[in-house]
C-alpha cells in the first residue's frame, strides 16, 4: 500500500509541476511571499493560485476520506458517504435557498449556510435512522430520500430563476481553483481538529464494528459514539461543501480503496482513508491542471471525481460481498391484511376518478380559482386532458414498476428511484440529447428507456450473483444513481447549451406531452397492468426467494429478466415526462400495502391506481401552485410523497 501511495504522490507532484511550470518558470518559484504589491501577476498566480490549490486538493481529499471512513464505520455500510447520506444535497439546498431568498446570509461566507443545511439533513436522516437502530440500509435509503428531496427543491428553485445561478453551477461542479491561502488555513484547522476527534473515537468505533448488540454488551456507549462520529463526519464534509462545493465519491472511494489494498481493522481504515483520499483528489486535480496547461479543456474537479469514481465503485461492488453485514432488515411488524381487498381497490378507483374529474374541470387562471367555463372549454379541455392523461399514465407506470420491483426483490424499499433506474433513464436521456442534434420525443423516450433497462440489467446481473440479496441490490442501485447524478452534474457544469433542456427535463412537466405521447403512455400503462395481473402468481413466489422459486420450477432467470426489462421500459417511458425523481414508484405500493392489500393481484391493481391518483394530484398542484409558472411535476410528487414516506419509516420501529 505504501509503495502505491508513494507512486500516487510522485505522479501528483509531477502533474502539478507541469501545470506550474507552464505558469511560471522554475527560477522564479522561490520568489513569492514578499509584499504582493511588488510581485508580477504570474508570481501572484503561482503563490496565491497554484500553490494553495495543491494544498486544498490534498486537504479536501483528506477531509472527505476521513468523513467517509467515519460514516462507513458508524453505519457499517461500505457505501455511506457525504453524498449518499444527503449531507451534500442539504448543504446545496441551503446555499441555493440563501442565494435566492436571503443573499445577505452569504456575506459571512458559505460555511455557516452549508453547515446548517448539511446538519439539518443529517439530523433528519439520523432521526429516521434512530427509529430503526441505525440499520445500514434503512439509514442509507433515508439519506437518499432526504437528499433527493433536497436536490429536487434546489432544482426547482434554480429552474425558476432561469440562467441566473451561475455561482451554483460552479459550486455543483466542485471547482478547486483558489485565489488565497485562507481556504487552506480554514481546512487545515478543520482537518487537525477532526483528526484528533477521530483518534479519540477510534476505539469506541472498533467496539461498535462488532454490531450494536455486542458493543452494548461490552459496555460501549453505542448511541453516543454513533452520534459523535456522525456529527464529526457531517461537519468535516460540510466544511468541504462550503469551501468548494460538491466533490463526490472521494469519501466513498477512499475507504473502499484502502480496504481493497489490505486495511482490515476500523483503525487502519480510519488512518489510511484520509491519506488515500488526499492522494486520489490530488492526482485528479493535478491531472486536470496539467491537461488545461497543455491546452486541454477546463473541467471542474468534482465532476471528474464523479466520472472516475462511479465506475470504480461499481467495479468494487462484487467485493462488498464479505463486507456487508449479514443483518436482516425486514419489517418487524406483521403486515395488515384486508378481508375484502377488492372492495378497497374499488374505493381507490372511485376516489381516483372523482379527483381526476375535478382536476380536469377545476383549476386556476389569470382571474383566480374556478371551474372551467363553457366558452373556453373547447380550447382548454383537450390541452388539459392530454396533460392529465400523460401524468396519470406516467404515475401508473412508475407505481407498477415499483410494485413489481418490490415483489421481485422482496424488499419494501425497492423502487425505480432507489434502484438507480431513473438515474439510468436520466443518463439515457442525456446521451440521446448529445447523440442526436434534434431528437424527437420518441427518440428521447427510447433513449431513456434504454438507459433504464441497461441499468436494471447491470444491476440484476450483479444481483444474480449475490442471489438478489436485497441489501446489496439496493446498495448497487444507489451507486448507479450516484454515478448518474455525478455525470449529470458534470454535464451541467460543462456549460453546454443542451444542459438547459436537461435541467428542464430533470424537473419534469406534464404539459410537455403530445397527444400521441400521452396515448402511447396510457396504452403502455394498461397493457402493463394487464400483463402483470396475468402472471400475478409469480409475485407470490418471487418474494420467497430464489431457493423456493427454483424449487417450485419457476424459470427464474427468464422471469427476472423479463420483469426487470418491463420495469425498466415503463420507468424510462414515464420519466421522459416526469423527470427522474418522483417517489411515486416507492409510495404507491407502500400505501397499497398499508391498506392491507398484500395479495399480488389486488396489490398490483391498487398500486397502479394509486400511482394514477398521486400523479394526478401532483400534476394539479404543479399546475396551480404558482400559476402561471408550471412547477416541476416530479418535484410536486416528491413533496407529496417524501413526508409520507418519512412518517411510514418512523412508524416502523425497531424491536
Amino acid at each position, binding site marked *: 500500500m505504501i509503495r502505491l501511495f508513494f507512486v500516487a504522490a510522485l505522479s501528483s507532484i509531477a502533474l502539478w509541476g507541469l501545470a506550474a511550470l507552464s505558469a511560471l518558470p522554475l527560477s522564479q518559484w522561490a520568489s513569492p511571499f514578499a509584499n*504582493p504589491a511588488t*510581485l508580477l*501577476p*504570474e508570481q*501572484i*498566480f503561482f503563490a*496565491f*493560485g497554484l500553490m494553495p490549490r495543491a494544498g486544498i486538493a490534498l486537504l479536501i481529499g483528506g477531509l472527505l476520506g476521513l468523513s467517509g471512513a467515519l460514516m462507513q464505520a458508524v453505519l457499517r455500510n461500505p457505501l455511506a458517504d457525504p453524498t449518499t447520506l444527503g449531507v451534500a444535497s442539504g448543504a446545496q439546498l441551503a446555499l441555493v435557498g440563501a*442565494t435566492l431568498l436571503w*443573499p*445577505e446570509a*452569504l*456575506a459571512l*461566507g*458559505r460555511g455557516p449556510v452549508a453547515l446548517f443545511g448539511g446538519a439539518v439533513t443529517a439530523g433528519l436522516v439520523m432521526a429516521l435512522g434512530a427509529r430503526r437502530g441505525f440499520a445500514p440500509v434503512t439509514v442509507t435509503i433515508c439519506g437518499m430520500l432526504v437528499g433527493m428531496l433536497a436536490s429536487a427543491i434546489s432544482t426547482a428553485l434554480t*429552474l*425558476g*430563476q*432561469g*440562467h*441566473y445561478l*451561475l*455561482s451554483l*453551477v*460552479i*459550486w455543483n461542479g466542485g*471547482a478547486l*481553483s483558489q*485565489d*488565497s491561502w485562507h481556504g487552506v488555513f480554514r481546512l487545515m484547522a478543520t482537518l487537525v481538529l477532526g483528526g484528533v476527534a477521530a483518534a479519540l473515537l477510534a476505539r469506541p468505533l472498533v467496539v461498535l464494528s462488532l454490531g450494536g448488540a455486542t458493543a452494548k454488551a461490552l459496555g460501549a456507549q453505542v448511541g453516543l459514539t454513533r452520534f459523535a462520529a456522525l456529527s464529526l463526519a457531517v461537519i468535516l464534509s460540510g466544511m468541504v461543501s462550503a469551501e468548494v462545493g460538491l466533490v463526490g465519491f472521494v469519501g466513498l472511494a477512499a475507504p473502499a480503496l484502502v480496504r481493497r489494498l489490505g486495511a482490515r481493522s476500523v483503525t487502519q481504515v480510519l488512518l489510511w482513508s484520509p491519506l488515500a483520499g488526499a492522494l486520489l483528489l490530488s492526482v485528479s486535480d493535478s491531472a486536470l491542471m496539467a491537461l488545461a496547461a497543455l491546452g486541454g479543456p*477546463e473541467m471542474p474537479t468534482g465532476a471528474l471525481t464523479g466520472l472516475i469514481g462511479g465506475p470504480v465503485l461499481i467495479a468494487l461492488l462484487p467485493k462488498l460481498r464479505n463486507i456487508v453485514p449479514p443483518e436482516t432488515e425486514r419489517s418487524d411488524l406483521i403486515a395488515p391484511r384486508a378481508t375484502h381487498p377488492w372492495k378497497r381497490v374499488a374505493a381507490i378507483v372511485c376516489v381516483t376518478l372523482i379527483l381526476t374529474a375535478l382536476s380536469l374541470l377545476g*383549476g386556476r*387562471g*389569470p382571474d383566480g380559482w374556478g371551474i372551467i367555463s363553457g366558452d373556453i372549454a373547447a*380550447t*382548454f379541455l383537450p*390541452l388539459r386532458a392530454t396533460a392529465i392523461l400523460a401524468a396519470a399514465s406516467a404515475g401508473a407506470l412508475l407505481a407498477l414498476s415499483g410494485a413489481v420491483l418490490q415483489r421481485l426483490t422482496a424488499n419494501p424499499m425497492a423502487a425505480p428511484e432507489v434502484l438507480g433506474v431513473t438515474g439510468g433513464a436520466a443518463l439515457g436521456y442525456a446521451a440521446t440529447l448529445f447523440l442526436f442534434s434534434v431528437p424527437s*420525443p420518441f427518440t428521447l423516450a427510447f433513449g431513456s428507456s434504454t438507459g433504464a433497462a441497461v441499468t436494471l440489467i447491470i444491476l440484476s446481473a450483479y444481483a444474480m450473483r449475490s442471489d438478489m440479496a436485497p441489501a446489496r441490490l439496493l446498495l448497487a442501485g444507489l451507486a448507479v444513481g450516484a454515478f448518474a447524478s455525478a455525470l449529470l452534474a458534470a454535464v451541467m*457544469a*460543462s*456549460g*453546454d*447549451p443542451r*444542459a*438547459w*433542456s436537461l*435541467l*428542464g427535463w430533470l424537473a419534469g*412537466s406534464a*404539459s*410537455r*406531452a*403530445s*397527444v400521441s405521447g400521452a396515448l402511447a403512455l396510457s396504452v403502455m400503462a394498461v397493457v402493463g397492468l394487464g400483463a402483470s395481473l396475468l402472471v400475478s402468481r409469480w409475485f407470490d413466489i418471487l418474494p420467497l426467494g430464489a431457493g423456493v422459486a427454483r424449487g417450485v420450477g419457476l424459470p427464474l432467470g427468464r422471469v427476472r429478466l423479463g420483469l426487470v426489462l418491463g420495469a425498466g421500459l415503463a420507468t424510462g417511458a414515464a420519466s421522459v415526462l416526469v423527470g427522474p425523481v418522483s417517489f411515486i414508484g416507492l409510495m404507491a405500493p407502500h400505501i397499497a400495502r398499508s391498506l392491507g392489500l398484500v395479495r399480488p393481484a389486488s396489490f398490483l391493481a391498487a398500486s397502479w391506481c394509486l400511482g394514477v391518483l398521486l400523479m394526478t394530484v401532483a400534476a394539479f398542484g404543479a*399546475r396551480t401552485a404558482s*400559476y*402561471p*409558472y*408550471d412547477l*416541476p411535476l416530479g418535484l410536486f410528487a416528491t413533496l407529496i410523497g417524501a413526508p409520507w414516506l418519512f412518517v411510514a419509516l418512523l412508524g416502523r420501529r425497531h424491536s
Partner: protein
Amino acid sequence: MASRAGAANLLVDRASPRIAAIDWAPPRIAAIDWAMAETAMALGLPLAALAEKRQFVRGAAITLPDACADLGLRGAPNLEALSLVSPDLILSSNFYSFVEPQLERIAPVYTRSLFVAGEPALPKVLLAMEALADHLDLRAQGQETRAHFETEFDHLAERVSAFADRPFVLMTVGDARHIQVFGADSIYGGALARIGLTNAWAGGTEFGFNAPVPVSKLLAFPDAHLVLVGDVPQNAQRAIRQGALWSALAPVRAGRLLSLSDNNPFGGAPSALRFADHLVTALERA
C-alpha cells in the same frame, strides 16, 4: 445622454402610432424567447404574452405593455395561459425547440436559430428583425428599424473610435474565484464588435449556460479593459476589492475596470444597443 440610453424605448414609441395610422390591426404575438420578444417590440409590435415576464422586466431594455400576460417558465411555458391569450403567432428560438411541438397545437410558431456556440449572435438577431418583419408583411418597417439600429451603433462607434484597437473582456462575476466571459457568440460580444472594439476573449464560449472560468484566466489580458456586466454577488465583492489575485491584475491596478448595470444577455438588438450605450458612456466617464 439620457435620450441615447433610452434609444430603444423611443424607437418603440415612435413606431407604434404609425402602425395604428395605416389602420392595420397588429397580430397578437406571444413570445417564449426573450431575444425574439425584444425583436418584435423593436418592430413596434405589442406583445400579448411573454414567458418569464417577472424576470424579464428586471433587466429589460424595453418596457412591456401592462396587458402583456406572463406565460411562466421559458423552459416549460404554461400552455393553458398561452391558449387563454389566443395568440396569432408564437415567437421562439432554438433554445426552446423541445417545447415547440406543444406550442404548435395552439398557434403557428415562428422560430429562429439565434444563439449557437461559436457563431456571432448579433448579426443573426438583426437579420431576424428583418425576417420577422417580412414574415408579417412589414418589410418596410423591418428595414427602417434595422437601419435605425445600425445608425445608433454607428454613432456609438464614432464616440469610442479612440479605443478602436484596445482589447476588452466582457464578463459577469460568478463568485469570488470564477467569472463568466462573453464571447463573440453573445449579443454583448456582437455589440462590442459592432462599435469597433476588440473582444480580447478569443476562446470558445457556449452560450446559454456559459462555462465559468477561473479568475486567473484574466492574467492573460494585461492590456485589456475589464467590463463587469450586472450585479456582483455579495461574496465576490470583497474579493474584487481586496483579493490578492484580483488586485494583482494589471487592468485593475491601472483602473481599467468598468462596471455596467444589469442588462439582459439573452435579449435582442435593443439589449445589445443598451449594453453598447452603457459601455460607451462608462468609457467616456473614465
